[in-house]
């Protein structure tokens, strides 16, 4: 074991964690924004918009990666823009963040949206009749009431971002120390016959994923208990 660790380059761990963390931040805000937009939208394109926003979840990751290449590549609309200011994201570490964000986004968006739609609309109406601005209603009523959904969406997004392989490989490549994430490291180690190294990474990602999910479970249990405790026995107390 010792000799194994001594020879191991830990950069994939750092690259993966950096990509997953930044992607979680990005999807946290974009997912909430998209969810609040779609749940408030009453037009006939709702189904289409929802479909587009959910697409990265359904498409094969390589397809997502390919589409990202089209957008961010040398001739893509955003790629050209970046080139004009003298930079490119393809095959550099920001590519890992972009790929992870895009594949993780639908999980955040869908979980938060269903949490928003479970809020009793009359609670929001009540807030409106009290003369309060939509902004305050959003932060003081909608978000707190949807919080369990927001938290669950965040964890799911993080886990998905951490585990992405296909899309990241397509636009980031597998440059060690730059864009080589744990899932990619596992693939290339196994392909190169270094099963011990692959196993090590597998164990590591196993531990991280399990840790995050377990922490999440205990935390939401704890939250539920505090709410239940503060709520008391609603039937037992009479006037």
């Amino acid at each position, binding site marked *: 074991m010792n000799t194994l660790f001594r020879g191991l380059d830990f950069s994939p761990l750092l690259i993966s964690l950096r990509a997953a963390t930044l992607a979680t931040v990005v999807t946290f805000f974009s997912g909430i924004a998209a969810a609040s937009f779609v749940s408030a939208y009453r037009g006939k394109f709702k189904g289409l918009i929802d479909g587009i926003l959910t697409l990265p979840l359904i498409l094969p990751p390589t397809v997502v990666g390919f589409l990202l290449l089209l957008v961010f590549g040398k001739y893509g609309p955003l790629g050209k823009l970046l080139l004009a200011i003298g930079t490119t994201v393809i095959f550099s570490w920001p590519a890992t963040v972009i790929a992870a964000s895009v594949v993780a986004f639908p999980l955040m968006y869908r979980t938060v949206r269903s949490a928003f739609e479970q809020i009793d609309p009359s609670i929001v109406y009540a807030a409106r009749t009290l003369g309060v601005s939509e902004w305050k209603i959003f932060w003081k009523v909608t978000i707190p009431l949807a919080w369990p959904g927001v938290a669950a969406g965040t964890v799911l997004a993080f886990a998905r971002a951490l585990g992405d392989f296909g899309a990241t490989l397509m636009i980031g490549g597998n440059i060690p120390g730059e864009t080589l994430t744990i899932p990619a490291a596992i693939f290339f180690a196994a392909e190169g016959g270094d099963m011990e190294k692959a196993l090590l990474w597998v164990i590591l990602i196993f531990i991280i994923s399990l840790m995050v999910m377990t922490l999440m479970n205990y935390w939401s249990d704890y939250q539920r208990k505090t709410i239940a405790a503060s709520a008391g026995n609603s039937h037992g107390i009479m*006037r």
Partner: protein
Amino acid sequence: MELCVDIRKKLSGFELNLNFETSEDVLGLLGASGSGKSMTLRCIAGIETPDYGQIVLNGRILFDSQKGINLPCRRRRIGYVFQNYALFPHLTVEENIGFGIGELRRKDQKAIIKEMVTMIKLEGLEKRYPSQLSGGQQQRVALARALATKPEALLLDEPFSALDDYLRNHMVRQLTETLGKFPGAAVFVSHNMEEVYRVCRNLVILSRGIIEGKGGTKEVFKAPPSLAAAQLTGCKNISPAIYISPFELKALDWGITLKTNIKLSQDIKYVGIRAHLIGAVSDETKDNVLRCWLNFANEAPSRITLYLFIEKENPGQRGHQIEWEITPQMWRFMKIQPQPWKLWIDPEDLIIV
């Protein structure tokens, strides 16, 4: 202080089309479920938008389809007590009450919250969450939350429907007291005629989106202007009727000619008598007497509902059924009387539409 509503809105199945105004006295909106009562309140509050019409509160136009005015909810200054109270479950009693007055100075906020908590008699429960309160307490918090913003009008959507009977009477009295002190227009929606009768000075009866009667509550209950109004004010016995003479009509279902106190018009359609206003007599020669046979008795602790067959022309032949509501004492007395019983309808109590 005045609220004028004149709106039309297409709903599934029927069109809401009504026109009423109200000032400080509590106005009751009585109707069966699905008659458009709640929708009316939602339109006034700005939660829903009418298709046509105008809503004016104290001279302020809240909605006017012709002028293209439609003030958003938050600028209408209308308090709303929802059927399920819609309290913020994650906020305490005082945070709920203070939610709409966040722009005031801390000190003023505290003063208003204190005043409201005292008004609804919830001192000591300020730090509780809604789920820790009983239904009656939740209703009071919802009322206090609405009144804390000092609205110009107050809308109450079935505020008692979520309460059990035991609490209801108590709460009706409390609410009547609070509404009595409220300086603006108040509209109270209910499908329960007793609540409306107790709480509201004036009344609008709504059926399938249309006003079937309006006026002083007592007057409308005494003389409902339409069949639907008679039914919604709780008249259980209604028969088609035809005009015979200025003070006489024939109740077709009951097979009896009834004398009336008021001068009849030629085009009367129905006659009704409330189940609790029927009396028993021994003297058959009086006017307005029905001969009845007991079919079925439905006993509640405080009153008994009897379903009776009216005897047709030939003795013993059974015709239509009527309902008679009596007290337990009266029931003990009637049980031992030989049938057919002779029931008398006071011309004073006849409902003619």
